[in-house]
């Protein structure tokens, strides 16, 4: 009787242990979900329905990153209605990253970039969406996952969503989760989907050193033209560098050759030095009412006569730039670009 009771308890303990083990999320990233191949249990991971299926995080609520995830920040980030962003990089073990000068990290197939958009701090922090970029055998795929109100699960939202929310500080935001095509619209060059953020010139020396240490990067590449750190802009006297970095990060994914706005002829990449191509005295092409009655993208010395400033300062669809990813103005960004244009010699030479 005793024995049997002991056996029963032991069996119960095993049962509980196995339930707990099953309840615990996977510790390792599910490479099949990243790659879109069939999983061991035969599940189809072409378009994983939930974020948890990737196994990026240790908890279903996505608060605790797995050990394989490398957190990172960008020197100058994209404005997304003031959302805080938690960025992670996943590179499969033993797969090196190639460097492309100071440009995009050439992440190997099987890599993923994970970015959670959140508002609020501490206890009040609320996740809105997590976007993933997956490097599959046939190229990159961008997918948006929307968090539920209970903050327990993020589900695939291929069609995107529009979410009314109030930002800390009281600003009302009609927040837009992009649909799968809209993801591609910014993330494409020459019709291929590519990452935007992790360019060597926009990453911290710390992160690059960490990647080297973990054996992902052969040698930590850096650039002599790193983008300035946006958070430290108050101490940075180089307005031109701040403005050009801001335009590179917020605009150039579309406004570059091969980008979604290539037909505009406007090229706002950091490395573009031709004054006309970055908009100085450049007449609009297909701006329509987005031109706001102004004759050129940038009127040196006169921000109020510059289409660029006008479109950055609008929230109206058809006028507002960027077209996607914001429904509020970025006052700080506008201030820097205004200052840059105002300080520009009317002769029209870019200072940067």
């Amino acid at each position, binding site marked *: 009787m005793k024995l049997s009771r002991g056996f029963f308890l032991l069996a119960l303990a095993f049962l509980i242990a196995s339930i707990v083990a099953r309840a615990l999320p996977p510790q390792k990233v599910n490479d099949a979900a990243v790659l879109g191949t069939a999983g061991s249990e035969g599940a189809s991971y072409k378009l994983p329905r939930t974020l948890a299926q990737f196994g990026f995080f240790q908890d279903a609520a996505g608060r605790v990153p797995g050990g394989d995830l490398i957190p990172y920040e960008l020197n100058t980030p994209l404005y997304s209605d003031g959302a805080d962003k938690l960025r992670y990089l996943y590179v499969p073990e033993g797969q090196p990253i190639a460097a492309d000068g100071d440009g995009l990290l050439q992440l190997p197939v099987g890599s993923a970039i994970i970015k959670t958009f959140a508002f609020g701090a501490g206890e009040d922090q609320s996740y809105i969406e997590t976007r993933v970029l997956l490097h599959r055998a046939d190229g990159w795929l961008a997918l948006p996952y929307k968090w539920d109100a209970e903050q327990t699960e993020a589900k695939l939202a291929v069609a995107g969503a529009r979410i009314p929310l109030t930002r800390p500080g009281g600003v009302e935001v009609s927040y837009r989760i992009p649909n799968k095509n809209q993801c591609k619209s910014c993330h494409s060059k020459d019709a291929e989907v590519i990452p935007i953020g992790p360019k060597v010139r926009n990453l911290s020396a710390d992160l690059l050193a960490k990647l080297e240490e973990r054996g992902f990067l052969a040698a930590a590449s850096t650039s002599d033209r790193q983008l300035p750190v946006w958070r430290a802009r108050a101490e940075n006297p180089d307005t031109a560098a701040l403005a050009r970095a801001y335009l590179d990060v917020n605009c150039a994914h579309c406004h570059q050759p091969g980008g979604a706005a290539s037909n505009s002829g406007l090229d706002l990449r950091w490395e573009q030095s031709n004054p006309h191509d970055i908009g100085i005295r450049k*007449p609009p092409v297909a701006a329509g009412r987005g031109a706001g009655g102004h004759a050129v993208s940038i009127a040196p010395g006169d921000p109020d006569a510059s289409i660029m400033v006008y479109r950055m300062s609008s929230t109206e669809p058809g006028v507002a730039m960027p077209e996607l990813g914001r429904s509020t103005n970025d006052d700080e960004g506008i201030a820097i670009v205004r200052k840059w244009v105002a300080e520009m010699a009317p002769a029209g030479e870019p200072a940067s």
Partner: protein
Amino acid sequence: MIRLTIAALALASAAPVFAENHTIAGGEGAQERLQEALILAEPGDTIILEAGRFALTDGLSLDVDGVTIKGSGMSGDSESVLDFTKQQGAGEGLLVTSDNVTLRDFAVENAKGDGIKSKGADNIIYHGLRIEWTAGPKASNGAYGIYPVESSNVLVQESYVRGASDAGIYVGQSENIIVRRNRVVENVAGIEIENSNFAEVTENLTTKNTGGILIFDLPGLPKVGGGSVLVARNAVIDNNTDNFAPEGNIVASVPSGTGIMVMANTNVQLRENALINNSTSHVMLIAYTQDFKDERYQPRPVDVVVSGNMFGSGGNAPDIPGGEKLAAAFGGALPGILSDGLHQGLAVEDAEPVVSLGLTKVGQSMTEANPKLLEPVIAGEVERLTAVTLPDGMEARLK
């Protein structure tokens, strides 16, 4: 025998066996349901828009090759309307970025930016569409109604566009283009072909726009050097609407009362059009007026043929500096063809005089105009442009 028939059937229908129809109705959740269908469609599929209104809050987009979006009509009781009146985001109503797409038999209303834009979308068909800003001409309307850009093989036909604050139908930086049998009403430009080659604009009705048909080229764009454009058998009537384009855009400088305007293009033929009651000029030939640094750019209208057109009344209220005086000098109305004087190789086969403003340098100010009547340069029958042909099977998609 039966087995044979089945085999034959299977063979005959090999391709479409996998093509599916996805029917979407308006009403609650239309934004997500329609967008999801557009994303999950497979090549060859048709998205069917049921009759009714689809109230949309955001732009739609299609990025799958070979998809057809088909409504049940552009107007009337069975119309399918994508209604963007309450749109909050995106630069256009519908964006297409994939090849071999067919858009037909539906309407797009009150898009906040452009109506339908297709970029880098080869072999695209726009058929039987209505793109409309329903309050009529307003500067706050979207820029373009139908807007294919950076594409090869573009067919736009039997559609209706009204209220665009730039161009009703605008084809930019593209080649191999047919725009035919459309009605474009109360836009700034009715039809505009810009920085494009090998285009035919035929049998359209362009009326009550600021300018009926514009054939333009602009410097500083990825593709410059527009030309080989046929504009034929169009009715270009009463294009006297005040220019309501927001300033800064090139069309904001188009005078009200313009019939057909050719700027900075080579090899343009205007044939057998009916040009009636356009109060500035039925046909205008001008050079690009602003500064440019693009070495590839050719700013003048070169090798333009005007032949077989019917010139009705018009030219009676030229919307250009000194226009009134100029008209008075010609007895109250300008002749049907007006040039800034900077054209090269003009052949007019019609018994219609040409007024030249007598400019001699590109970029010269109009204040230095020295108007005169040009002697007709009848060159005899001029060789026709090679007809634009679309790839095999493209038009068959409409069957």
